[in-house]
């Protein structure tokens, strides 16, 4: 089975987000880079599927040259091959991203294309669906369990309050996954060494016109007033009880 997994390089944020002076980008000077938890799980799912079914897994990223790091990380975990759709680092809207991915994989013969449900930074929730529609393939989003029933049939499950929704699907297909579908592995030392020899195909995609144009970023209003400290340790318990009563939850 041939599996493609698409990932996006994003800053690894901690407890604070700072913007650049022009309000256009996140200030990443003190930040590391990573991919979103959903995408880490998509990479893991691709590796597991190939381990179980045979075949090969490919990782693709659209982003700046530095996104090669995130591709290399996926290769170190067990993906065989990388494709970098190299951009100048500017913003690509979901339609342009999907178009570039589709034109890069048109000549390949993937059975399954995996995405994270949404990227950590832009959170547009649509690149996977757009790729599926362009390829004429079925797509299930928000997937937290994926079972392969045969070479052509799979069962995708979504977790909702109160249970699981079941979606049978025919391959080739696009599936967007959520964190929780598996526990991603860490790369082994051996994996890191072999990854250095694996191939990364570098392409320069054409950027189609954006329909959603970013004008700038801003911080949301905090919305909470001054914090009321209720005390320290168990001595605070009477004040907590009083606060619970005041809020009407006790």
């Amino acid at each position, binding site marked *: 089975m041939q599996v493609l997994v698409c990932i996006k390089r994003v800053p690894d944020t901690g407890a604070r987000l700072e913007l650049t002076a022009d309000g256009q980008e996140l200030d990443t000077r003190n930040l590391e880079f990573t991919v979103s938890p959903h995408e880490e799980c998509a990479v893991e799912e691709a590796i597991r599927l190939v381990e179980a079914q045979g075949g090969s897994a490919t990782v693709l990223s659209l982003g700046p040259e530095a996104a090669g790091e995130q591709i290399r990380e996926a290769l170190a975990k067990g993906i065989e091959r990388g494709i970098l759709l190299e951009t100048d680092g500017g913003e690509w809207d979901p339609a342009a991203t999907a178009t570039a991915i589709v034109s890069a994989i048109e000549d390949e013969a993937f059975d399954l294309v995996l995405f994270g449900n949404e990227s950590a930074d832009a959170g*547009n929730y*649509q690149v996977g669906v757009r790729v599926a529609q362009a390829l004429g393939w079925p797509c299930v*989003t928000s997937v937290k369990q994926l079972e392969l029933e045969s070479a052509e049939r799979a069962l995708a499950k979504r977790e909702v309050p109160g249970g699981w929704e079941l979606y049978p699907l025919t391959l080739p297909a696009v599936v967007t996954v959520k964190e929780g579908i598996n*526990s991603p592995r860490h790369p082994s030392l051996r994996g890191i060494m072999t990854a250095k020899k694996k191939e990364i195909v570098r392409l320069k995609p054409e950027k189609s016109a954006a329909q959603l144009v970013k004008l700038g970023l801003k*911080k949301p209003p905090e919305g909470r007033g001054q914090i009321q400290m209720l005390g320290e340790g168990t001595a605070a318990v009477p004040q907590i*009880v009083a606060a619970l009563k005041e809020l009407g939850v006790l």
Partner: protein
Amino acid sequence: MIVVWIEDQGGKVTDAVWEALTMGRRLAQQMDQPLAALLAGAPEASGLTDQLKEYGVSRVWLTGDERLARWAPQAQARVLARLIEQERPQVVLAAATDRGNELLAYLAARLQLGLATNCTEVHPGDDFTVTRLRWGGSLLEEARLLSEPKLLTVALHVNAPEPQPAESFQIEQFVAQLEERDFIIQMSKMEESAHEGVSLAEAKVVVGGGRGVGNAEGFKSLEELAQLLGGAVGGSRVATNNGWRPHADQIGQTGAQIAPELYIACGISGAIQHVVGCKGAKNILVINKDPEAPFFARADYGVVGDLREVIPALVEAIRRERGD
């Protein structure tokens, strides 16, 4: 015309629908356009029409198509695409739920239009711009949406529902004309999981635990507290990744977004990924032994202390209070 897609599950809707309708109604007033709604789901959804009128909807379409009772995003997108063709609305919007985001993505892909998800504000005019959530809500983006009609989803727990009845009201049938191939993806069935009390999404009180809880065992006292308050237990990404809680209990950007009256966060430092999941909480009480924990800067109430001492003592005090 502004069209709001109404997500129903067996004739029931969540607050997200009323939030989306509230944004739709304000937009309709600003643009001097009528507000309409599409109920494409189960036939029993027709029981909702009175409520839609209360939220300012003057025209409702029902498909009454049995086949749409089980979720089929491509078929739903087809219905909306037909409606767009027939009625030429200026804006189509849905709540930014899993299904709402999915449906509008299908619609946008089918019609090759732009889509702005998770919008908190919409500014119509010659230049149609939106404010939308980024990083799960820790940043806001101003963006321009170029294509017509405008497709957008409304961020959850941001704008409170506000009814304002419509002056006139009419209900129409909309013949979906769906084909077999529109159902290429459809939910085949729902597997119900064992009921475990109040759900995170609906709970009035949520007790959350993070790294400070230490292990699965440590959640026992949090569960006791939640039970006493009629609430639900959740966890940070650390708690779910370590297997202390099932992944479904994760509160955060890649988990559940909660909006209780009170969120009691125990041993959680306050990483962005977590904080954006509880922004909708009316009140937040943070209990952490580290006075420097960043979560204190985003809370309403704070206790500096070890949760392993504070929570059991609090449970004890509440029991005494109730005379147990």
